[in-house]
């Protein structure tokens, strides 16, 4: 059985999204306080959320 190779976007789509979200979170949290800390920390938390999602849903 041979499956077709994924293209570059299928491979890197999710990682690029997480990369962009975490960098925005890292830098954004520098710019504001209070509520903004929570908002930007949530963006950085995308790393943890995606990992937990993968460990549950993509385990096989």
């Amino acid at each position, binding site marked *: 059985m041979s*499956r077709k*190779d*994924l293209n*570059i976007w*299928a*491979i*890197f*789509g*999710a*990682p690029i999204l*997480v*990369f*962009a979200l*975490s*960098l925005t979170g*890292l830098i954004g*949290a*520098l*710019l*504001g*306080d209070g509520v903004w*800390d*929570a908002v*930007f*920390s949530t963006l*950085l*938390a995308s*790393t*943890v959320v*995606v*990992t937990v*999602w*993968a*460990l549950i*849903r*993509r*385990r*096989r």
Partner: protein
Amino acid sequence: MKTRTIRAWTLVHKWSSLVSTLFLLMLCVTGLPLVFTHEIEEVLLPQAWTPANPEAPPLSLDQVLAAGLALHPGEVPAFMSFDEDRPVVNVTSVDPNGPAGKYSFEPIDRTSGEVAPPVAGHPVMEFLLQLHTDMFLGLPGMLFLGLMGLMLIGAVVSGVVLYAPFMRRLPFGTVRARKAARTRWLDYHNLLGVVTAGWVLVVGATGVINTLATPILAYWKNTALKELTVAYDAPAPAGERASLDAAVARAKQALPGMKLQFVAFPGTDYSTDHHYAVFFHGDTPLTTHLTTPALIDARTGELAAVAPTPWYVKALSLSQPLHFGDYGGLALKILWALLDIATIVILGSGLYLWLGKGRRKPA
């Protein structure tokens, strides 16, 4: 990707990782408790001290300076800094004829002029910090860890490149949990590695910049700060100095809305021979790390210059919060800890995959 290209990146990934893994593991393990330094010390250290006269009007800076210097006759003032959460002014002085770098440090209660207990870190945290910063080897240790940080950046970049050939038939996030341990750990390594890449690059790169703190500050003192002294030929003698309070007030006028951070006296590392350098910082998480000195002529008390720090000092200043993760509340610290643990798993699994390689049956 061509086989030859993959092989080249594999070499980069293998060697940049192998050279640095043990040091990076040490940095991650010591860094984990260091993220919570503030919280840990709040629990471990006694918090008994209170100011003598909380209601009294604060002493003037000149009075505080006199109180500090009275404890060390013959010494001249070097620095004055201000505690953030208690009315304490720290007076650092130095014997002009003594050995270089030997300072006296007196925290003075601004409500009474008495000595307050110093704020010292917990010995265990200080030990971890020193190990994390320079492994007790001073500047060479710091620069060496900086080099390990560069290796880390190389390993992350090459790892992201190699992610493509490994994942070309696996949907994002796949963990083949029922396959052999090696396959399973390869999947964990790839998933955690690619997901944490942004954070690891930021913490790694800012860590590298922090290891360059000593040369960066030395360069700043020897170039930009030095240029401001050209007009003078003789240092301002201690007896002919303008009032410190007046100097700080004049500096505040020049930089309205900013918070006083510390004062460097003439002749010290952070000033010139002729100026009070009065350092201010802003009050947002970003600007609180960006300092701006106003130079006040120590003889006349007049404003000589506002000298915004050059870009490389700003880069150093911003690298500290971005490395320590202490700028966004407890939630950010917890994320820092989780990502630190993820990095330990990546380093460990990488080592495991490399060690297991020899025992793999030839194909």
